């Protein structure tokens, strides 16, 4: 893992530390219901279907939407702990609430999912969706036991500059460097961003040959990418 300095409020650190000490979330069980996500309970203690009690959404002290929870960088509460940290790699094993992560340079990280960890895997979700073999970026604070207590993990997230080479009803063919990538179009999930306008579900202005920035979730099983957002230049594909 690498370390960095950030500048933000202390409140998030307090909450994260408390959540880590409580060890609230159990991976692989106790998935919290979708209704909990949509009924405004983010940042509060909720009871999962299996009886596991967790805290989702990462903050009880500010924003209650998922994007804001991911966006808020943390900084250590204890002045002696000067740095926050980052880890990346493939998940080699899942032991309770700790992800054993094989780093891309042969290093190894132990990434702890706490009750305050925001999880993204194609969308804001819960730790129950994390699987062995997934790729991961994690942001958090190092604990004395050597684990990284995370406030946010992004699972299989990719953000690629590509060229659209083909368009089908359910997928895009993308050229990324010298490689072809299949981009899966997901009903009601994939959006297009045409420059300065808000992302839209209207994909009709995507055209072959366009340069595009594609943000999505990589599928380790087949190497394709579930497309979340396809951004192209303003005016691209506009009908005259």
């Amino acid at each position, binding site marked *: 893992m690498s370390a960095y300095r950030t500048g933000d409020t202390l409140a998030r650190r307090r909450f994260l530390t408390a959540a880590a000490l409580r060890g609230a979330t159990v991976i692989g069980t106790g998935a919290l219901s979708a209704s909990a996500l949509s009924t405004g309970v983010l940042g509060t203690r909720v009871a999962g279907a299996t009886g596991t009690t967790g805290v989702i959404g990462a903050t009880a002290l500010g924003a209650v939407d998922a994007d804001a929870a991911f966006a808020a*960088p943390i900084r250590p509460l204890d002045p002696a702990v000067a740095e926050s940290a980052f*880890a990346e790699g493939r998940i080699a094993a899942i032991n309770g609430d700790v992800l054993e992560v094989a780093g891309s340079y042969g290093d190894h990280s132990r990434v702890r999912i706490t009750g305050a960890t925001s999880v993204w895997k194609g969308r804001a979700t819960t730790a129950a969706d994390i699987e062995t073999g997934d790729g991961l970026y994690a942001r958090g604070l190092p604990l004395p036991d050597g684990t990284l207590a995370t406030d946010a993990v*992004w699972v299989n997230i990719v953000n690629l500059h590509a060229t659209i080479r083909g368009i089908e009803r359910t997928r895009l063919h993308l050229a990324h460097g*010298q490689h072809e990538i299949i981009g899966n179009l997901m009903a009601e999930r994939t959006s297009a961003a045409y*420059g300065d306008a808000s992302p839209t579900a209207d994909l009709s202005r995507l055209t072959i040959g366009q340069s595009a920035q594609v943000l999505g979730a990589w599928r380790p099983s087949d190497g394709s*990418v579930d497309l979340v957002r396809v951004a192209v*230049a303003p005016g691209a594909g506009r009908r005259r």
Partner: protein
Amino acid sequence: MACGSTKLWNGEATWFCCGNSWGPCATTGGGACGTCRSSALHAAWPNASKACWDITRPDLCGEDIPRRGCGSEMKVRHDCSGASVCVTVTDCGPRTRSFCSESTCCDGVCRTNRVIDLTPAAFSAIGSLSTGTLPVSIFE
């Protein structure tokens, strides 16, 4: 140039992967400077060299971004949260010309044109990877 407080530029920050990695990023390599790593506080700058400039062409979007080569240090500040991170230039990018006039806003603050690409470590230090872009100011 160091990670200081002299205003250099502002615009959109995006993120990219480099160095050894997983998934589609596994083949990206060490970037124009050969040392870029996703897990380090690194950045790509559109005018890291003449050859780089010829690829990114920010001038086509009205951005006459100054030359800052490999090893240059910059401070990147999120224009809404105020969170900042110090980065080292290790690659060429983003391809500004492909997204002329694109803008990213937060709390009524908007920045136009892609002017810096951050590694996942650097981008996540000041924002969420899932947003894709951030409005930023850059200092040196």
